[in-house]
């Protein structure tokens, strides 16, 4: 017994090292893959409030550019107003069709971005809007120029978004003009570029084509810009392309984001679960 105590006291520093390494590696390899580290949400609230102070200062430097971006988006939206379109009268009576009234499928919530990382292998964006303000896990996030990512964790007032430049990020996408069914992933190298894989070679793509979210996506509205093809390569082993895509959003410089709430997602999920059970 005495021997054991002697050994322990002799190697206590080494044992402490092994214990601490064990704890950190356990946290790293378990919680990092799930991104649902809810026990960290208090810590995220604290770092979030520090980030917010920094961001309040920093946002002054980008006011002009942000204004320009928002004005451009306003013009785009104004041009889609129904009042701007009018066809010549050709009906004598108007029938109001109550059956085919469109059902709202997506709802946008605005949010301020308080931090965006680009330097790591797993990059996140932090939003100043959380569970108390209606943010849920798995909501899509888009910016003024294009897709940012999806929500992976929420605390009462903050939300953590796994951005496109995260090693485990994967978003279904297609080429705007040619279609196809691919997947956007990141190779961890350059934060300005992502990769579009699994697009069949039969589809005609060229440099400069726009890549948008697929209609099959369950979290993003179809047709949201992801980026522009900057390099076309073919995969030798499979029948698909490997396309280098320049992201539409500049991750160095994001200040506003829109959260996309998919109103039919709950219904869709329960339907899929029902099918799986049967």
């Amino acid at each position, binding site marked *: 017994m005495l021997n054991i105590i002697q050994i322990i006291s002799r190697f206590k*520093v080494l044992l402490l*090292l092994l214990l601490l390494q064990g704890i*950190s590696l356990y*946290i*790293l390899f378990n919680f*990092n893959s799930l991104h649902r580290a809810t026990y960290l949400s208090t810590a995220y609230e604290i770092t979030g409030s520090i980030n917010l102070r920094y961001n309040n200062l920093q946002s002054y430097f980008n006011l002009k550019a942000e204004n320009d971006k928002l004005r451009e988006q306003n013009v785009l939206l104004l041009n889609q107003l129904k009042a701007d379109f009018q066809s010549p009268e050709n009906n004598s009576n108007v029938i109001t069709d109550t059956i085919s009234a469109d059902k709202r499928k997506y709802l946008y919530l605005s949010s301020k971005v308080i931090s965006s*990382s680009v*330097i790591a292998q*797993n990059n996140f964006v932090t939003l100043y809007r959380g569970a108390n303000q209606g943010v849920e896990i798995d909501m899509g996030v888009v910016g003024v120029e294009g897709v940012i990512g999806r929500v992976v964790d929420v605390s009462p007032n903050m939300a953590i978004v796994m951005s496109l430049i995260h090693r485990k990020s994967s978003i279904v996408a297609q080429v705007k003009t040619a279609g196809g069914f691919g997947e956007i992933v990141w190779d961890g190298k350059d934060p300005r570029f992502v990769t579009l894989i699994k697009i069949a070679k039969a589809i005609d793509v060229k440099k400069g084509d726009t890549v948008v979210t697929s209609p099959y996506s369950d979290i993003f509205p179809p047709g949201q810009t992801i980026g522009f093809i900057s390099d076309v390569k073919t995969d030798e082993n499979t029948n698909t392309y490997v396309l280098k895509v320049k992201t539409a959003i500049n991750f160095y410089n994001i200040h506003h984001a829109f959260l996309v709430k998919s109103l039919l997602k709950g219904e869709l999920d329960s339907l899929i679960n029902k099918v799986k059970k049967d």
Partner: protein
Amino acid sequence: MSNLLKNSLRFALFILIQVFLLDKIPPINEFIVPILYFLFILWLPFNISKTQLLLLGFLFGFVLDIFTKSPGLHASACTLIAYIRPFIIHLLMPKETYETNYIEPSIVSMGFLPYMIYVLILTIMHHFYLILLEWISFGDFVFFIGKLIASTGISMLLILITEMLSPRNIKSRSRFN
């Protein structure tokens, strides 16, 4: 200034500089990642016990992890260099010198060359372990080696600049110029 107060200030300052300054710099190259924060552990006093050093290293790394949202990554790299640090100091200088005359490792207390060797070894250890953990998850050998070399280089440069700017080396300047 008392040692505790000085080191608490350094704790906060190194975290803030890493998170709000170095991590905001657009990377010049995919391999170059400026990392400076671990200098905090290298600057801790000589007389700190090994147990305290390990626990402090873990805490320091974990605080940075919460900011970068990678729980465990920096904490494990920091505990590793906190464990190795006493051995390197023991190798590089005789025990009596640092226990009687000086408080913490610096160019003044250790001499320019031994101090630089001390910094270089721990920087390589830290980066090797940190990038190895990333590599295990994602795998790409060229990326691993390239990032290790480039990041070690840029960290050494940053540490040199910090040493030049730091008020703790005022005496050393007159000695080396």
